[in-house]
């Protein structure tokens, strides 16, 4: 256990190190954050003072080492813009993003898997073709555009749902969740749908491909020969067999879900990490960028770990080998 955890942590550390170097170098190449932040009327002296105060006058490697030292002490640094501890800034927004992405993924799975399985089960039917065509639209239309259309239709024209923002939240375990209030849910529907569409298409395609293949297998034939109904075959056999690739891809796609959350959060004014990161990029708020990316890397590793555990849960071949007698 210790060894495995250690290995994973090492991997995490390597990823984070790479990320932080990348961000440092990237921001350095873009320019001095102070040039974005500081007012035009600041004198050279003030400018120099501010630059020195943020340590931006040091050579890049010294800035980086300083960051590393503080990081090892558990200090992620403070936002250039807000002068707040970056960790606080991120942690207060993390629930919103998690809520959004997880809902989106849940929607994508809940809708995508059945649709995909149907499309794979009756590949030549008109409905299946329609589902597949729709899924293409899902992957091809840019997220921001769909988002706006959703707002136009459901918020502006029909007035059924709010056009943006997060709505009422309830504090559970010290974090605010909007999933638990009706108002919060109403606010969540459109952004989650927007974010889910892309994943949905992916789920449909994966589920279809898997189903298509498995429907031809002897396992299915054998189950049918035993008199199982088509529903039972799909529900018990096919679903089980396609679960593993689905879980893998979901894990891999998590990073991109978060990335697209950036767009969705912008359109829907969702107070999550995506908006934070875009704003910190546009204001070259380096500590926030670094911390965010480290967090994403961490999240990615955690998700990977969970995917591995899910494998073990799903695939009995990875489970305990019962002795033969």
């Amino acid at each position, binding site marked *: 256990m210790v060894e495995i955890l250690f290995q994973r942590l090492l991997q995490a550390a390597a990823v984070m190190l790479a990320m932080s170097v990348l961000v440092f170098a990237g921001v350095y190449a873009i320019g001095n*954050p102070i*040039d974005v932040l500081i007012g035009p*009327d600041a*004198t050279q*002296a*003030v400018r120099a*003072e501010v630059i020195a105060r943020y340590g931006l006058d040091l050579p890049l490697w010294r800035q980086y080492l300083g960051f590393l030292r503080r990081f090892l002490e558990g200090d992620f640094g403070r936002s250039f813009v807000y002068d707040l501890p970056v960790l606080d800034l991120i942690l*207060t927004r993390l629930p919103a993003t998690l809520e959004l992405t997880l809902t989106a993924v849940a929607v994508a799975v809940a809708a995508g898997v059945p649709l995909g399985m149907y499309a794979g089960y009756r590949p030549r039917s008109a409905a299946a073709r329609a589902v597949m065509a729709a899924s293409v639209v899902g992957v091809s239309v840019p997220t921001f555009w769909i988002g706006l259309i959703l707002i136009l239709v459901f918020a502006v024209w029909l007035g059924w749902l709010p*056009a943006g923002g997060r709505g009422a939240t309830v504090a559970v375990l010290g974090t605010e969740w909007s999933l638990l209030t009706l108002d919060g849910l109403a606010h969540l529907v459109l952004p989650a749908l927007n974010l889910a569409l892309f994943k949905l298409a992916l789920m449909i395609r994966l589920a279809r491909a898997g189903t298509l293949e498995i429907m031809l297998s002897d396992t299915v034939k054998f189950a049918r020969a035993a008199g199982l109904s088509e529903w039972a075959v799909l529900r018990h056999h096919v679903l089980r067999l396609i679960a593993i690739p689905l879980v893998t891809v979901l894990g891999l796609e998590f990073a991109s879900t978060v990335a697209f959350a950036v767009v969705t959060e912008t359109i829907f004014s969702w107070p999550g990490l995506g908006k934070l990161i875009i704003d910190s990029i*546009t204001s070259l708020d380096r500590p926030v960028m670094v911390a965010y990316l480290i967090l994403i890397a961490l999240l990615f590793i955690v998700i990977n770990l969970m995917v591995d555990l899910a494998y073990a849960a799903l695939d009995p071949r990875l489970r305990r080998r019962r002795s033969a007698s």
Partner: protein
Amino acid sequence: QTLTIGVRAGPESIDPHYTSTGTHAETLKHVFDTLVWAGDDLSLQPRLAESWTPVDATTWEFKLRRGVKFHDGSDFTADDVKFSIERSRKISGPNPTSVYVRRVRDVTVVDPYTVRVATNGPAPTLPNDFVRVFIVSEKAARDYSTQETANPGFNSGKAAIGTGPYRFVSWVPKDQLVLERFDGFWGGREPWEKVVRKELSNDAARVAQLKAGQVDVIARTPSSDIATLSRDPKLAIVSTGTIYVFNLEFDFREKPPQVSAKDGSPLAKNPFLDPRVREAFDLAIDREALAEFATEGQAKPASQLVTPNIFGYNTDIPVTKPDVARAKKLLAEAGYPDGFKVALSFTSDRLPGDKEVGTTLAQMLARIGVAVTANAQPTALFFPARQRGEYSLAMWGWATSTGEAHYTLSSLNHSFDAAKGAGNYNVTGYSNAALDGIIDRAAVALDEGQRRGLLQEALALTARDRPRLPLVIIGTAWAAQKARVVVTPRVDEDTLAMNIRPAPGR
């Protein structure tokens, strides 16, 4: 009665001395007062100071308003003023508010309702600076006045005690700020019990929330939506010109990095050093068209870098009339009958219409034979690159936020001089000794009439020499739920709850 406002950006902290960003000041004006108030048209008005007079060349005396209460019930006195001025020097974020008190040598409390401010040298525009100097309660903020304690103290509300019409309730960065009415406000009770300021940085999101009825007012309505919104019977649009002027700046260095002959070969010398080329560019630009089409009528043609309501504005300078034929002739005379190639860089996400104006400029310059590659950049990339001197032709917007032209002239057109603190924003290498002289004299002229004359002269000289071309004055518009509210516009674009009143008949 709750008022919900959708704005582009909010405060960066609740400490008013933390940063000098415009939106920061805008927000905190609800909670804190200043000695001097900039009116809707930027004219100076008494606020916490009832009057201000120069005692001598380097001293201003401010008479304070009596009977003003802080949100915690304590009285406002001269000590709070002294404390606040000194505090704004010590506390500093990325964009120090110390610029507003840079000319202050020291502050003396004469009596509880009189303070004297001694300046480093003559400072005729000190009251203009004080428009942005917020007064905090010494009692509440004393313990939160170091770099480390300031933000935690104010953001938690402990130190966020002001004299303004609203008191601070809560704030989530980049999300929303909640205020509630301060019933003890010296200027009388506000109509709104509660004010929610939502940060909606995306234009479409702002408009959508207004249309969906989630907000009462939005600031900076995208120009593309104004026409439709004004046709909506439920909504009202209020617009005004702002103090932002787009300008096109030329590179005056010997070796401009982004200029070349059309075939890509380097030019013998920098064409922008030739006044005929600059004039040709001026003549190529159809400012009426820019205003009418690029910004859909939201902007107005500009004749100079400052707007008419700014102190020092020169009414004699006309808006240049476009003349493509003459522009071509001038170019030919300057030795560029076939034009040349240049990259035009501009911000794409900073101000309303910047991208459209930039791309349109490229079209207009193409008409006189200059091959322009349009380089639209996010603000985060534009300013650092500009600061590094990577651009040879740049278009961006400038606001005369102090309300007087000296600020603009000395920042942009004065030769760069680190020692004097002049030309801070002049990265083009432009240097005109005559102009510098006039600007320097205006800086210390205490007599208003004399100062106005000098500033007008400097602007006229700028119009002749064309170090940068003024293009259009940016307009701004608020859109509001007609049935609920009425908005009075401000030229500095501030969206204040104090300028929003319930609609009559409600």
